[in-house]
Structure formats: structure tokens, C-alpha cells
């Protein structure tokens, strides 16, 4: 950890190098410990220390950007100069007159000292506990346990001066024995909340519950989506529909059908950076306090997230969802959640006469954004449910389905939710997802395992 005083002091020194009155510097520092394992062996353990800075300059209403890494004032000064040159180009984009003004920030506590102090060896010890649960089964574990101690800071010439320390941890494991596999994961801000033995048990149980997998033909099935599977659909829905950038390029169904019913009334999806069950984060990279944004409210299309750039274009206010500007997709929700329902897992299963329990999906890609149509595979456990009982393991399917089509046929939602992370190791973004029972989910292909 660099520390609040040192990081903000460095940002101030950088800001002093600015020649123009509107300059902003964002900092993202991290100490990452990642213990990757496969074949029940720690095979790719690593630690990374890095700090990145993003500089923005506005000159005569035009904006310039540059980014650099390292606590090196000369290099940061060069980045400030590059951003100034960029803002001085005749073709630079007319943007705003100024950056964000200081606003009160709601305090959050997402930093765990014990997690920050836990060395790689402590993480390896947790992974070792996991390996023990595979002994005698003939199978092995693969996955990762990572923890990050991070700091974000924003400083601008309007007086914004913000600092936020955080920790985040994620552990996920695939247990595999020949063609049978099972998956489980846990994410939290605090390493002590990660129980590797529970993860190991769950993934072994899911893999070895049945000795073989049977084939079923593609077609429409009632499906109980586990939290991981729900979260993956939410992730892609957010990507294609929940940002102002998607509205601008015409790919957002929220933009097209605002105020209309687009999903079942049991479906409410929002972004809430203050929920203590997620990775809390009080401000974005532009120093704007995060607002709670509801995308779908009881099935009705509502709104999307903005940064200051898209807010300017749409003549509205930023919702505090700016991401580092070298990410080209514009503002994004990083604390997605789907509202809980009322059912227990057992109650959800009981509602299934004949259907499938889906552990998670793999390699989802967008087929048609406005139809929210995606394709992908199932992975690490598909089970046939008959009359409320899990009766056998089924080989994997390919699905090609509209996400909102699936969310329009929701029969029930679980009351418990799980924090699921994807994508960047060490980046504290998560999705709080429930189990979802939906009907007529469209599987369009199968595979050999």
C-alpha cells in the first residue's frame, strides 16, 4: 500500500505540473497476490505491485488524455504534457468546460487489514486445505485464489481530492475427474470470509454426485440457473444494454424501450455500490459519487449508467460510473445486483416437473444486442431435475437465447444471493446474483462431454 498521504501528495505534485486550469489525475494502485493451481498443484503463483495514473486535461472546451504507470514524477509530468498536447489538437473533442466539483462522499468500509497483510504463503495454505478434499477421489482441483490490496485516488483542479482503500478476494475451483467436473467459488472483501474447504466440498460434490453424464437432445427446457449462471447473463446484459454508450450506438434495449415492460415483474436489476454484500466503492474515476441506478424495475425498462462524458452528450448528470478512459466501452455498472425473490433452493427445485439445473455458463458472446440474444455453453455440471429431485447428470449444451426472453419467463427467484466476480483478477467488481427459475430456455446444440 502506498498510503493516503503519499498517494495524494504525489497526485498534487503531478497536478502542479499542469499548465492549464482544468486538469484531473486518477490513480489506481494495487498489490495483487494470485495463487493459480491446476492438477492439485500450485503452478502459477504470482505477486504484482503496480500503480497507474490517468490524466485528463480540458483546454478551451476540448479534452486530452494520457496514462502512465509508476511513482515517477518525471513520467507523470510527461503524461500531463501529453494530455495537454492532445487537448490542443484542432480535432480534439468538444467536451465540458470543467471537471467534477467536490461533493460529499458516503463513507464505505471495504478494507480489511488482515487481508492486506496476508502474504502469498497464507493464500497457499488455504489452497492446500482445498487439495486435501480431493485426496482419494481420483480427481484434481484447478482454479485460483487471489487477494488484492488497492487504492484509488482522484485529484482535480476544482478541488476534488478523494482516496479510497480497498481489499478484495476471490477463490474459485473446478474439480475434475475425467469428463466429470464441478465448480464453486466465493468472493468477499475479507480473506477470512473465504472458506476453501466449503468451496472444495461443493465442487467435489457437484462433480462426483453421479458417475456419468447422459445425453439429452437440444430443445427448450425449464431451467434453474445457479447464481453463477444468472450472474453471467447479467454481465452480458449490462454490457449490451445498461450503459449510455450502448444507447448511443443503438444496441441498448433499455434505450429503445424505456418505460416499457421488457421482463417478468419478478425481475429488478440495479447497480448499487453501497451494498455491503458487494465490493463497495464510493466514487468513480472522475471523482463523482456513485448513485444507485435501476435498469429494470419489476420488469420495466428504466435507465442506464453515465459518466460525465455521456452525461454531457445526453444532457443529464453523471451517475458516477466512469471507468478508466482507456477502456473503450464507456461507463459501466461494476456493482450489479438482481433483487432477491422469496424461494429457498428446495422450493425452487420442487417447482420443476422436468427441467435442468445449470451450474454455470462458458464463453458467452453476443449474437444480436437489441434482441439481447447471446450464445454460450453450459459448464461444470448440468443436472436433470424430475418432480423436484435431481436425478442425473447431463452432458453440456449450447444455448442461443435472448437474455430478456429468459427473464420474461421467470417463475421464481431465490431469496439468497451470491457475490460472483468475473474478468479481471484483482479488480473489485462483482455481481450479486440469485438463483433464477425460468421456463423454455432454448438449447440449440450439444457436445461430447
Amino acid at each position: 500500500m502506498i498510503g493516503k498521504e503519499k498517494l495524494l501528495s504525489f497526485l498534487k505534485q503531478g497536478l502542479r505540473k499542469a499548465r492549464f486550469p482544468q486538469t484531473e489525475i486518477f490513480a489506481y494502485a494495487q498489490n495483487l497476490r494470485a495463487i493459480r493451481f491446476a492438477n492439485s498443484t500450485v503452478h502459477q503463483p504470482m505477486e504484482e505491485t503496480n500503480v497507474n495514473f490517468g490524466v485528463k486535461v480540458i483546454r478551451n472546451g476540448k479534452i486530452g488524455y494520457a496514462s502512465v504507470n509508476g511513482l515517477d514524477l518525471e513520467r507523470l509530468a510527461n503524461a500531463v504534457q501529453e494530455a495537454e498536447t492532445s487537448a490542443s489538437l484542432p480535432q480534439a473533442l468538444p467536451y465540458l468546460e470543467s471537471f467534477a466539483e467536490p461533493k460529499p462522499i458516503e463513507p464505505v468500509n471495504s478494507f480489511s487489514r488482515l487481508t492486506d497483510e496476508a502474504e502469498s504463503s497464507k493464500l497457499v495454505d488455504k489452497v492446500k486445505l482445498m487439495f486435501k478434499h480431493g485426496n482419494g477421489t481420483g480427481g484434481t482441483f484447478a482454479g485460483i485464489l487471489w487477494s488484492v490490496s488497492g487504492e484509488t485516488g482522484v485529484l482535480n483542479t476544482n478541488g476534488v481530492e478523494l482516496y479510497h482503500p480497498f481489499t478484495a478476494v476471490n477463490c474459485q475451483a473446478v474439480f475434475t475427474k475425467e469428463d466429470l467436473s464441478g465448480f464453486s467459488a466465493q468472493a468477499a472483501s475479507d480473506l477470512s470470509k473465504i472458506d476453501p474447504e466449503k468451496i472444495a466440498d461443493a465442487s467435489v460434490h457437484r462433480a462426483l454426485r453421479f458417475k456419468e453424464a447422459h445425453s439429452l437432445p437440444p430443445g427448450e427446457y425449464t431451467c434453474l440457473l445457479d447464481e453463477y449462471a444468472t450472474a453471467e447473463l447479467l454481465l452480458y446484459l449490462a454490457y449490451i444494454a445498461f450503459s449510455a454508450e450502448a444507447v448511443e450506438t443503438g444496441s441498448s434495449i433499455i434505450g429503445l424501450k424505456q418505460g416499457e415492460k421488457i421482463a417478468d415483474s419478478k425481475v429488478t436489476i440495479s447497480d448499487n455500490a453501497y451494498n455491503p454484500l458487494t465490493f463497495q466503492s464510493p466514487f468513480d474515476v472522475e471523482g463523482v459519487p456513485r448513485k444507485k441506478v435501476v435498469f429494470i424495475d419489476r420488469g420495466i425498462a428504466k435507465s442506464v449508467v453515465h459518466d460525465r462524458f455521456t452525461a454531457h452528450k445526453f444532457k443529464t448528470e453523471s451517475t458516477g460510473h466512469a471507468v478508466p478512459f482507456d477502456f473503450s466501452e464507456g461507463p459501466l455498472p461494476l456493482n450489479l445486483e438482481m433483487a432477491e425473490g422469496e424461494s429457498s433452493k428446495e422450493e425452487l427445485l420442487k417447482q420443476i416437473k422436468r427441467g435442468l439445473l445449470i451450474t454455470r455458463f462458458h464463453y458467452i458472446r453476443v449474437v444480436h444486442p437489441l434482441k439481447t440474444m447471446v450464445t454460450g455453453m453450459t459448464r461444470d455440471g448440468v443436472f436433470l431435475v424430475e418432480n423436484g429431485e435431481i436425478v442425473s447428470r447431463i452432458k453440456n449444451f449450447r444455448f442461443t437465447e435472448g437474455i430478456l426472453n429468459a427473464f420474461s419467463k421467470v417463475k421464481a427467484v431465490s431469496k439468497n444471493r451470491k457475490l460472483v466476480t468475473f474478468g479481471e483478477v484483482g479488480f473489485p467488481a462483482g455481481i450479486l446474483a440469485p438463483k433464477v427459475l425460468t421456463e423454455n430456455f432454448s438449447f440449440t446444440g450439444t457436445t461430447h462431454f
Partner: protein
Amino acid sequence: MRQTLEWLQNKGAEYADFRIISRQSETLLVKNQKIERHIENSDQGFGIRVLYSGHWGFACSYKVSPDEFLKISEKALKIAESAAEAGGEKVILAPQKPVRGTWKTSYKKDPFQVSKEEKIELLIQASREMELPEIRATKASMDFTKEKKIFANTEGSYTEQEFIISGAGIEAIAVSGEEHQVRSYPNSFGGNFFQGGYEFIEALDLIKNSKKTAEEAVSLLHAEQCPEGKKTVILDSSQTALQIHESCGHPTELDRVLGMELGFAGGSFLTPDKLGKFNYGSKMVTIVADATAPTGIGTFGFDDEGVPAQKTALINEGEFSNYLSSRETAPRLRKLLKDTLGEENTFGKSNGTVRAESWNNLPLIRMTNINLEPGDWSLDEMIKETKDGLLLTTNRSWSIDDKRYNFQFGTEIAHEIKDGSLGKLYKNAIYTGMTPEFWNSCDAVASREFWRLWGLPNCGKGEPVQTMFVGHAASPSRFQNVQIGIGKW
């Protein structure tokens, strides 16, 4: 570097390597004729990988200084010690003679010396040409990367390499009601990427191709939905390239085969028992991994284990013949094959495919330039000899299962082929299949005249995810009895 490596040897490291990397990049994005992003990025740091008691430890830092070298070395060693205590199979590295040398990208025009105004003006003009009534948004982009990499290891290897990667592309998005169609040039998702200078951007002639790209996007809004059924398909060169990437490149990565990626990207159906006796494809299909291909973005002088760049046949006239390997995985493969091919089989040496995205990543097996060797057909001949089929052009979506059997691709545009002639346009074209069956149905590959080298700058692998520059050369190829038209539209 030498002192650090000696220190590690004295501390009992069996092997260590050390990379110092500095990278400069520039991204320009013009959206709807306005410059939306122009970002200059500068990044540097170093990474040290240590093998201790048969287990790896890796640590890295942005502070490039002798004090930090020692601190990070200690950390890497400590991580390796912890990993060793967890037990499991020990790493044995394939032997490799020390190498010393330099390697540099050949280029005519350094893209970082071309004025920003000139680049932006080109993109704005291309964007302007795409403005049509039903075009909702246009994008035109350029990306440039310049990287300097110094590598040294405890075996005495020392290499210095400098790379320049240049890429550009345009995209037109047409929207009408709930219909959303995209056309791009020269390829989707950022265009095409080359190892070389600004001369490649000029040769793309983005402005000349802009209007046609936008017109096709608009035409797609009014095109018929792609029909469902089994047909002959001809994939254009860029879609063939992505088909190679997903269904040949990734499955031949030996770390995937050995289960080392099971926790994230998955495994591979291509088990070692298939080596030398598996019909991956028809006789038309010869695929090579070529890290020496001029202008390929998967080209280099030496990999990140000090192994010189090589050209290796992965599939030879349809028969699966080799993997992409590393110094860690090759000895494991040789051991697995000793019963069938003998103790001294030739698979124990790395074929030099290991790279890390940057200083802060562990090196992994990565595709180099995975190329489908050209055949002797012309595209016209292929079309003329097709009774009922589709010509599928430019990727729109891609997905494949975690053992790389079941794939499904969508393309931006499809043309009907009826009795040897191109017919009407179809939108939302999708095809699906199983990897070996699909490649065995390949009955025509176009000649070198149609062979193009495509650069994919965004191949993801590993955790933390590493994005790698990889290349694929391919010419249009024909496949029989392919399932098309999936999903409820």
C-alpha cells in the same frame, strides 16, 4: 540483471528468468466524425520468474531499480518456496542452449512519428464517408504499440527485442426499430493489425472502403433472415482465420491439454494419444505455427523462455502432428508418449511459443501465427462449384466449448450461393459444428493469391487474463454439410 540472476542461483534457484519491458501505445477512436478517444500510454516494469524445488514463483514491480530487483527476487523465491510446500508434480525444464541476440520489427514509417493531426484527419474522413440516413453510429480507430523487451536467464541467455504493432479499422452500425446490423472493414473488433509501421495503415485505404462498408450495413437492415438448414459454406479469409484460432489454435496449446488452464479457459479434446493418428481435417488442411512470418503480430525473434522463433506443422494434410509447447510442458509430453513412441521421442523440446503480455504477467504458451496453408482454388471456382450454399464474411460473434469441440460463429454478412452464382443477402447468419467433423468436411482452400495475414490483438488466456497479439494467415475455404441458421429470430 546478471547480478540478480546470480543471487537467485546462489539462493538455490534451479532456474530463473528476468524480463524488463517498456511499452508505449497510442489509441485513437473517432466516433460519428468526432475524436472521442486519443490516449497515449506509457508503461514499464520488470518481472522475475524463479523455479525452486520444482515449483514456480513469480513477482514483478513497476520500479525498475537494482534495489527493487533484489526485493522482487526475494519475493519470487519465497512464493516458489510456498508453492513447493503445497506439493504436486515438479517442473522439469526441457534443455535449451543459451541464446544471445537482438530482434527488431521491420518498418518503413514509425507510427509514433506520424503527426496526430494526420491520423485523426484520416479517421474523420473515413467516418464522414460512412454517414448515411440509417447509420446510427460510425467508428474509426487506430492502435499503435511500441515495446522494448530485455530477457535474461540463469542459463546465460540474453536477448533484446523491439516490436512495433500497427492496426486500424472502421465500423458502421445501422439501426432500424429492433434491427441492429454492423459492417466493418477490414475486419471486425478494431480492424486488422500488423507488425510494422504506418505504411500498413495507409495500405488499408480506409477512406476508399468506408462508403461500401456503410452501404452494406444499411442493406443488411432490409435483408432476409438467414435460413435454417445444412448447407455448403464458404468462409472468407478473415472468418477462416478466426475458425483456425478457436478450433485449431487453442486446442493445440499443450498447457490446456495437460490441464493447466482447466480453472479458467478449459482443456482440450486433443489428448496426447491422438498425436500422429488423428484425422483433424481433410487432406486440404495443413496448419502451421509460424513465429517467423513477416508482418505477423505473432512473430518474434525469441520467446519468453529464450527459445528461438520456429515454424512447426500442427496439422499436416489433415493429420494432427504437433502441439504448441513450452520448456515446462514438452518434457511432460515426452514422458506421456514414452510407451508409444519410446523414451527418446522427439517431443521433449519446446517449439518456442511462450510469451507474457507484459512485465507483470507470467509467461504462458500462446499462439504465434497459426496459418492454414493455401490450396489451389480460386474463390470464383469455389463459388461456381457450389450448388446450394452461403458465402460468410467477417466475424460478428464466436463461442466454443471448454474442450474446443462445439463451436458457433456469427458473421456480419452472408450471401446466398445458388447453382454456382452469388445471390441474395442474408442477415444474422450463424453456423455451428464440431471441430473435427467440420475440418474434415473442408473440400477446398483458395490459393496464395487469396491468402491474407490477419492480426488478432485480443487473444485472452490465463489468470490474470493476458491479452496477446496473435496472427492467422488464411484464404477462403469451403466446408460441406454445415448447420446454419440457429436460434429463434
